[in-house]
């Protein structure tokens, strides 16, 4: 009985023992568990969302790391002595018009084609263009010596005038040619023949060679000689390429009382030039026979050499572009080979170890993030519970006041 009494007493004490955990504490813990427990709690959805994005973050980190590692590896394995690749382009002068304003720097290469150079042009066009016609007189000598001209005072010294005061003055009087000719691009072969006849009638051996392109005189070379006992003169004129706007080639001769030519002149009467000698070469002048058979004056050896070089240039824009493209292709192939070689040289195990470390670090970071989020959530829950407690207390107080 004593034992039974003691046991009942013990049970009674146990049934009256003070609770260690209050209702409020239990409620708080319950609320926390309720919110954090999986399944349908809005607050946890955010956490779960973060956790589901974990995989994505890891994947993106891995991809970024691989890309970075590849770039670093390529940069580090690239040969240092290789010249940097220029982003600029070389564009021929002929395509300048096509160049639009862009971001890339343009280096305009000096043109290598000179349309104005007859020699080069003739080389290209001759024989392939049926519109070009050469014709010359029978005795035209393409190897004839060239003639040296000098300024000629073309005034009549015997010409005297009396001025208003009655004084005798001798003003400059230009003596006109007895026969004057102007050759332009419109000059025809018939006109040239007419000149020849007139010259021969005046005692001048007259020969010419003409180049006609598209029915227009493009170039003319004239050889004229006076061969008399006391007077021997030669005149040799080779024009530049005629253009519509160009000044004409002017020449003529003076005649004696018998109507025979005694002096030939080149140029306008006001700026007349007459030949003073002849030869194949002098200190300043040089004769050049082009492929068309025309002899040309070259004013310095350097220019002639330059023209020769230019004439030798067989520059073709298309060929040049092809070369550029071929070079580019070659460079690209080389780069591709170097890239392959570099990729083979890359130590992927090292990259993988770096990636592993990165992944571990990422996971650690995410874990920390998860913990921080949980802490924040718990803080929020605590705050919420406290607010609810306060509200409950207020409600109770209101109820008590009402009941009172």
């Amino acid at each position, binding site marked *: 009985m004593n*034992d*039974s009494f*003691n*046991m009942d007493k*013990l*049970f009674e*004490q*146990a*049934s009256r*023992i*003070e*609770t*260690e*955990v209050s*209702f409020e504490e*239990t*409620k708080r*813990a*319950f*609320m926390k*568990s*309720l*919110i954090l*427990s999986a399944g*349908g*709690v*809005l607050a946890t959805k955010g956490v779960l969302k973060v956790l589901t994005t974990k995989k994505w973050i890891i994947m993106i980190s891995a991809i970024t790391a691989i890309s970075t590692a590849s770039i670093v590896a390529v940069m580090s394995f690239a040969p240092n002595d290789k010249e940097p690749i220029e982003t600029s382009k070389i564009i021929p002068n002929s395509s300048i018009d096509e160049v639009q304003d862009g971001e890339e720097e343009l280096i305009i290469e000096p043109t290598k084609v000179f349309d104005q150079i007859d020699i080069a042009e003739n080389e290209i066009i001759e024989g392939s263009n049926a519109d070009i016609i050469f014709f010359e007189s029978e005795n035209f000598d393409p190897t004839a010596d060239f003639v040296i001209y000098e300024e000629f005072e073309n005034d009549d010294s015997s010409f005297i005038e009396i001025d208003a005061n009655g004084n005798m003055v001798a003003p400059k009087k230009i003596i006109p040619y007895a026969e004057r000719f102007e050759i332009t691009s419109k000059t025809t072969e018939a006109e040239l023949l007419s000149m020849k006849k007139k010259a021969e009638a005046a005692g001048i051996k007259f020969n010419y060679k003409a180049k006609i392109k598209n029915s227009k005189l493009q170039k003319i070379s004239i050889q004229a000689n006076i061969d008399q006992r006391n007077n021997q003169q030669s005149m040799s004129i080779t024009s530049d390429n005629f253009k519509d706007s160009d000044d004409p080639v002017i020449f003529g001769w003076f005649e004696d009382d018998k109507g025979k030519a005694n002096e030939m002149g080149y140029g306008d009467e006001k700026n007349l030039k007459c030949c003073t000698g002849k030869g194949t070469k002098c200190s300043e002048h040089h004769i050049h026979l082009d492929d068309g058979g025309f002899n040309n004056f070259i004013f310095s050896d350097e220019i002639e050499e330059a023209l020769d070089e230019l004439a030798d240039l067989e520059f073709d824009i298309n060929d040049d572009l092809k070369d550029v493209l071929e070079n580019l292709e070659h460079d690209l192939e080389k780069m591709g080979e170097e890239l392959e070689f570099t990729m083979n040289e890359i130590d992927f195990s090292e990259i993988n170890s770096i990636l592993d470390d990165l992944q571990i670090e990422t996971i650690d970071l995410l874990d920390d993030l998860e913990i921080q989020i949980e802490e924040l959530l718990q803080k929020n829950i605590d705050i919420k519970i406290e607010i609810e407690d306060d509200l409950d207390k207020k409600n109770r107080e209101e109820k008590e006041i009402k009941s009172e």
Partner: protein
Amino acid sequence: MSKKKQNEFLSLYEPVHDRFERFCRARVYGEMDHQDLMNETLLKAYEKFDTLRSKEAFLSFLFSISVRVLANTNRKKKETTKLNQEAFIVKDINSQTDKNAEVFMLYKAMTKLSVEQKECLILFEITGFSIKEISDIQNTSESNVKQRLRRGRIRLRELLTEKSEFAQESKGGQNER
């Protein structure tokens, strides 16, 4: 989360909190933190709160869930550890004051009982459930509950007597020296 449901649940729980807390403390003494059991039970109860037909049955509803939770926990743990005499000197994780030392001694003694006997005694003696209520909670017959109570008390008396004798022997030994 339904605020209304929460409030209703907590309003029903508040009056039975003390009894529930005592039950849990006595039931899992020496095994686990009774707060965990309370929490888990409340969560389960809240989940199944919609199935509760009458508010009067909330108490037995809560304890039934608690008993089932414990049963599931024990099944998972497959506890084979049996407390022996040394178990009495295991530090009580729930004891905080010396005033309730006798009660904790009772708790300790009850750990030697079978789960069914222990639960019956706690529910009947400490929590104050009737035999019918306990039979409902344990999902067994009333006669079984009575038998568990009787056998549990006998066993508990033995244990407490052994304990007191052991204590007295220890005291006597010390005096002889």
